[in-house]
């Protein structure tokens, strides 16, 4: 083959990281897309769901295509499609167009990421090293995705997320073109085709369940931070960076334990425990999300790599089994999102009503003069009308603050008490969904326990 291995290894890893980052990169941009495209919470979820659903469906067929047409050509074309669809995503001014472009992006991504697994062994020298590199590149991309997406949304716009991907995808495709040209000239692949073995059912099933749990965790936490606690996308990006940073620690811990089953079980328990913590937040404070996030981060690094290794170990061809793991992971993401979205949208609506009643009770019971109360009630009523269907923001209803010092203090105290009720409502609205995600993560212990022991 042509080209030096090092740039090609970097390009292949970049391609995998880029595509798998895309399954979560828009998470922090969803509130912005939700407002700009004037859609519903359930509708905007499809920006995320569509990509993961198509990835789940296309991964295995794409892996077969890579084996037939040639992994170099498949990867190069896949990355070009991914880049082109990225442009269409950035240009979309309607939810339908954006979702359609995301589906095309996922087809290109599935082709690229599975073909890369077929190219890696020849480039790095062994199937085991190739599988390890592929898993690490994918996990890194998936973990960094939300933070990068949040930064781009805050500093530029949500469209920037997709525009930035275009040159990166083309840069990753450039070194792969040499392989594609070589394939076109030699046509070596048909002779290398081997019979495909059965996928590792329990490892892939566990992978799907854990991915459902992790996707729900990330999605819910971002919505809680931005829509519930009113953090900016950049603020939320910094907060959720705790998860990928802890994943680095999880990866180091994982290297000390050879047993894939122990790593998978410990990882699933940590993810579920972290989600249990998020379901039981005792106060609306960013600091209290840190211990659960650290647990989820360490857990996801342990469980995702252990299960991917188990699913790939001793199985050939790698691209097909890699396709199954991609399919399982993304199917899990879809299940996770679809399972929790209706629950938390219903709970947000219910908590909104409770928050408004509790807030009104606080205003009525306060010692603020009656005419100030009536004025506040009118302003809050109009804020509620403006923010129909969401947990409302009420800060502006208190402006300007009274000049009389005693009344000023009473109004400030009232504002704090009212904000506390809204924080309670926003946080509580997410609790059942976090609890369900925790339960899905725990249930993954069943297939992990059933998995045939594979010591790598």
């Amino acid at each position, binding site marked *: 083959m042509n080209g030096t291995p090092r740039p090609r290894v970097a390009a292949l890893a970049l391609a995998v990281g880029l595509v798998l980052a895309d399954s979560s990169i828009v998470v922090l941009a969803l509130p912005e897309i939700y407002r700009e495209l004037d859609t519903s919470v359930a509708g905007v979820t499809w920006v995320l769901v569509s990509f993961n659903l198509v990835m789940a469906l296309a991964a295995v067929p794409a892996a077969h295509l890579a084996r037939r047409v040639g992994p170099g050509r498949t990867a190069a074309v896949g990355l070009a499609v991914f880049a082109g669809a990225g442009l269409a995503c950035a240009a979309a001014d309607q939810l339908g167009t954006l979702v359609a472009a995301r589906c095309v992006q996922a087809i290109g991504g599935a082709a690229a990421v599975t073909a890369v697994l077929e190219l890696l062994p020849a480039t790095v020298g062994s199937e085991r090293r190739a599988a390890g590199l592929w898993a690490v590149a994918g996990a890194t991309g998936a973990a960094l995705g939300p933070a990068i997406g949040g930064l781009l949304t805050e500093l530029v716009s949500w469209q920037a997320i997709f525009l930035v991907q275009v040159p990166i995808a083309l840069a990753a495709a450039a070194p792969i073109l040499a392989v594609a040209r070589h394939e076109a000239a030699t046509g070596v692949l048909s002779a290398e085709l081997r019979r495909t073995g059965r996928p590792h059912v329990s490892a892939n099933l566990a992978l799907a369940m854990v991915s459902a749990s992790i996707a729900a965790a990330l999605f819910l936490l971002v919505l809680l931070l931005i829509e519930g606690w009113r953090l900016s996308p950049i603020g939320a990006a910094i907060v959720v960076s705790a998860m990928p940073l802890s994943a680095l620690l999880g990866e180091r811990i994982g290297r000390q334990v050879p*047993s894939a089953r122990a*790593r998978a079980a410990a990882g699933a328990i940590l993810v579920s425990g972290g989600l249990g913590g998020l379901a039981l937040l005792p106060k609306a404070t960013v600091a209290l999300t840190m211990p659960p996030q650290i647990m989820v981060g360490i857990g996801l690094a342990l469980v995702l790599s252990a299960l991917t290794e188990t699913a790939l170990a001793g199985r050939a061809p790698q691209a097909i089994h890699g396709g199954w793991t991609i399919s399982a992971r993304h199917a899990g993401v879809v299940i996770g999102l679809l399972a929790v979205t209706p629950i938390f949208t219903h709970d947000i609506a219910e908590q909104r009503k409770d928050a408004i*009643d509790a807030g009104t009770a606080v205003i009525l019971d306060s010692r603020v003069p009656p005419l100030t109360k009536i004025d506040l009630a009118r302003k809050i009523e109009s804020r509620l009308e403006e923010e129909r269907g969401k947990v409302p923001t009420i800060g502006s209803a208190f402006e300007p603050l009274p000049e009389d010092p005693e009344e000023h203090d009473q109004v400030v105290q009232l504002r704090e008490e009212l904000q506390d009720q809204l924080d309670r409502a926003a946080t509580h609205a997410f609790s059942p969904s976090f609890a369900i995600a925790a339960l899905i993560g725990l249930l993954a212990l069943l297939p992990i326990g059933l998995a045939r022991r594979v010591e790598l």
Partner: protein
Amino acid sequence: MNPAARAQLLVVGAIAAAILLVGAYLAAGGSSYEPAKVQDPCKQRPWRNPESLQEIAQQFSLSALDGAACELGVSREKLARALATPESRERFTKRYGIGDAQLARAVRAGLVRAVDDAEEAGALNPLIAGPLRTTLRSIPLNRAIELINDAEALLDQAQGFLGPAQDLLEQFLP
């Protein structure tokens, strides 16, 4: 440490960390961190040390809201929001299928209950409470809503009337 022991330690450590986190958040009140529940308006609420006229007026308004909300079968908070503006009142009556006559009856009943509560709390002289009840039972709806929103003027007038009347009574009493 051998690989098997490391594997066991990892799993046991994960279980311990999960239990510790969930237990700590539960102990810190994680299971009850939710908006305060509103009270039943039909239940009597004690008045909190009404001293100034303004505070008496506040308690009076709250009692009146409780009484009216109890009559209508809604929470005091819902009714308070409904009475904030003519538009919110219209939305409320439409949503609950309440006519103006029914609303007027409920608001008047609420005001009468407020007089009862004020009298019981020692914030309103019994001499004025009786005539006030009679007046409130036939007051027009808009005026009744104004009184709920700002009872200070009503109570001020009542006290103003009561002052000379009480002086007069005291002259004749032993």
